[in-house]
C-alpha cells in the first residue's frame, strides 16, 4: 500500500517537474551551447533540437525521457558534459559525507540537549537551551554558514575558504585529510542549526514521559535521578527522536544546498543551484528525482526503525 503510494507520487513528481522545466523561458539549446551561441546558425540549431528530441510534442518527449529514466539513463548534463547519473553519483558521495556527519552530530547533540532541558525543566539551563533552539529555528542557514566561515576561516584561519578539495591539486593527490578539512565547516554549520528540532522535540517528549504513570510508579519504587532516566526515560524518548531524525531528510537536503553554496562544496546541493541557474534541464530533473528518493528513503527508515525497535509493533507480528 505504502509502496504503491510512493510510486504514484514519484511518477507524478516526474511528470510535473518535466512539464515545469519544459515551460521554462530558458532556451535549452542556448543553455547547452552557452557563449558560443552567436556562432551557431539556425540549421545547426535545428539539428541540435532534433538530436535532443526538442521538436516533438511535450508528452512524447516526456515518454521518451521517462523510458530512458526507467532504463537508468537520466541524460547528459549540459554544464558538466557528463552523464547525469555520473554527476549525481560523484556528488552524492560528497554530499553524503556532509549530510551523514551533520545528521549524526546534530542528532546526538540535539538529543542530549533535549534530555538535559527536560530533566532540568524550568531552570536556567532549560531556558537557555529553549532560547537557543527557538533562535536557531529563525536563523538563516546561509547566514550561519557565512558567520562560521568568517570566524573559523577568515578570522582564525584554521580552515580553507571553501572548495571540496584544495585548489590546484590534482584529483589523485587529494588526501582524505584534505577532504575532512573541507568538510568540517559545512558540517558544523548544519549541525549548529540541526540540533534545534531534535532538542525541542526530545525535551517535550521527555517531559511527557516524566509525567507519565509509569514514571510515577517507578518513583514510587524509589527510583530517581539518573537511574530513573536511564531505565525509563531514555528508552521511551529515543525512538521518537530517531524517527524524527529520519523524517527530517528533506530539511537536511535543503540545508545542504545552502551550506554547499556558501562553502563552495562540490555536492548535490551546489549542482542543483548550478543546474537551476544555468538551465541544465536533464541535471535538474535528475536531481529532483534523486532528492525525492532521498526523502522517501528517510521516511522508509523512520517507519522501519519503528517496526524494528518498538516492541508494540515488533512482537505483534511474531
Amino acid at each position, binding site marked *: 500500500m505504502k509502496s504503491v503510494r510512493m510510486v504514484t507520487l514519484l511518477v507524478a513528481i516526474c511528470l510535473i517537474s518535466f512539464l*515545469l522545466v519544459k515551460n521554462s523561458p530558458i532556451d535549452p539549446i542556448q543553455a547547452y551551447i552557452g557563449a558560443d551561441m552567436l556562432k551557431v546558425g539556425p540549421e545547426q540549431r535545428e539539428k541540435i533540437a532534433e538530436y535532443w528530441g526538442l521538436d516533438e510534442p511535450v508528452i512524447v518527449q516526456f515518454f521518451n525521457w521517462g523510458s530512458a529514466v526507467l532504463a537508468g539513463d537520466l541524460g547528459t548534463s549540459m554544464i558538466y558534459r557528463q552523464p547525469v547519473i555520473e554527476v549525481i553519483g560523484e556528488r552524492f558521495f560528497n554530499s553524503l559525507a556532509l549530510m551523514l556527519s551533520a545528521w549524526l552530530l546534530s542528532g546526538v547533540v540535539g538529543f542530549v540537549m533535549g534530555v538535559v532541558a527536560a530533566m532540568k525543566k524550568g531552570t536556567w539551563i532549560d531556558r537557555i537551551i529553549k532560547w537557543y533552539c527557538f*533562535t536557531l529555528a529563525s536563523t538563516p542557514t546561509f*547566514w550561519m554558514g*557565512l*558567520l562560521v566561515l568568517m570566524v573559523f576561516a577568515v578570522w582564525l584561519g584554521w580552515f580553507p*575558504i571553501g572548495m571540496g578539495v584544495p585548489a590546484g591539486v590534482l584529483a589523485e593527490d587529494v588526501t582524505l585529510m584534505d577532504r575532512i578539512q573541507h568538510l568540517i565547516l559545512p558540517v558544523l554549520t548544519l549541525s549548529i542549526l540541526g540540533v534545534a528540532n531534535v532538542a525541542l522535540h526530545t525535551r517535550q517528549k521527555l517531559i511527557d514521559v516524566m509525567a507519565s504513570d509509569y514514571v510515577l510508579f517507578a518513583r514510587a519504587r524509589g527510583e530517581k535521578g539518573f537511574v530513573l532516566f536511564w531505565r525509563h526515560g531514555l528508552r521511551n524518548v529515543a525512538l521518537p527522536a530517531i524517527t524524527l531524525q529520519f523524517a527530517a531528510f528533506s530539511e537536511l537536503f535543503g540545508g545542504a544546498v545552502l551550506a554547499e553554496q556558501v562553502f563552495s562544496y562540490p555536492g548535490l546541493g551546489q549542482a542543483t543551484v548550478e543546474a537551476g541557474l544555468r538551465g541544465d534541464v536533464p541535471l535538474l530533473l535528475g536531481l*529532483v528525482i534523486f532528492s525525492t528518493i532521498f*526523502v522517501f528513503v528517510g521516511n522508509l527508515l523512520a517507519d522501519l526503525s519503528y517496526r524494528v525497535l518498538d516492541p508494540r509493533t515488533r512482537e505483534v507480528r511474531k
Partner: protein
Amino acid sequence: MIKKFPLNRKQRTLVKIIISIIFLVTVILGGVLLDEDKIVTNLSERNSAPSLEHLFGTDWLGRDMFTRTVMGLSLSIGVGLIGAIGSASIALLLGMAAATMGKMADRIISWVIDLFLSVPHLVTLILIAFTLGGGFKGIVIGLTLTHWPSLARVIRAEVMQIRSAEFVQVSQKMGKSRWWIAVHHILPHIVPQLLIGFMLLFPHVILHEAAVTFLGLGLSPHEPAIGIILSESMKYLSSGMWWLAFFPGLCLLIVVRTFDQIGENLRVLMDPTRNHD
C-alpha cells in the same frame, strides 16, 4: 516576587504581541520612508567599518548598510506577507475541502500534500523559480506553493473535530445547509488556528525567500533584498569586511524571530490549555 507590573499573564502576552507588531511596522515603514540618498554610490566613504554615522558600516560602493538592511527587511516582510497569505489561503481551502467533501476528496488532498512534502522545499523552489525565470513572480509563486501543507493538515483536523461536535450535528438535523454551517460554525472556530498558523508560516516563508534569493534564483540583483546583500557580501568576506554579512543577517534573524514570537504568543492567548509549559 515583587509585583512591579500589575498585569496578569493574558495582559503580559498582549503587551508582548503589541511591542512585536510595533517593531515590525517600524521596520516596514522604515524601508519605505528611508532616504534613498543614503544608498547612492559614494566612493569617498566606501568600505568603512560600523561607526556612529553608519551604524552597520558601508559597502564597496559607499552605500549605507543600515539603510540597505532596513530596505531589505521591508522587502522581505512584504514578499513574506504575500507568500504567507497565499499559502494560508491554499491551506484553508484544501483543509476545509478535505474535511467536508467526502472520502475521495480527502484522499486526493492527502496525496497532494504528500506530493509537496516529498521533494525538499528548496529543490521545489529552485524548480519553480527556474520555470518562471526567477524574479519576483517566481519566488512568490514558489513560496505560496510550498508552505501550505502543514497548515492544511491542522485545518483539516480542526474542521473534522468541529464537524463531529454536538452543535453542528444539531444544526445539520435542523436542515441548515452546508454553507450555513460552514460560515456560522466552522469558520469562526478555525479563524484562531488559521491566524496562528499564518503567523508561524511567515518566518519560514521569509527564510526561504532569503535563501532562494541568496542562491541567485529569487529576487533580481537590482532589488535591495537581504539575500542579495548577503550573497554579494561573500565576495568581500576574505577581505575582512565582516559587517557586510553580519548585520543584515542578524536583523533578518531578529525579524523572523519576532514573527515566530507573535505566533507563539497568539497561541498562548487563544489556546491557553496547551500552554502548561
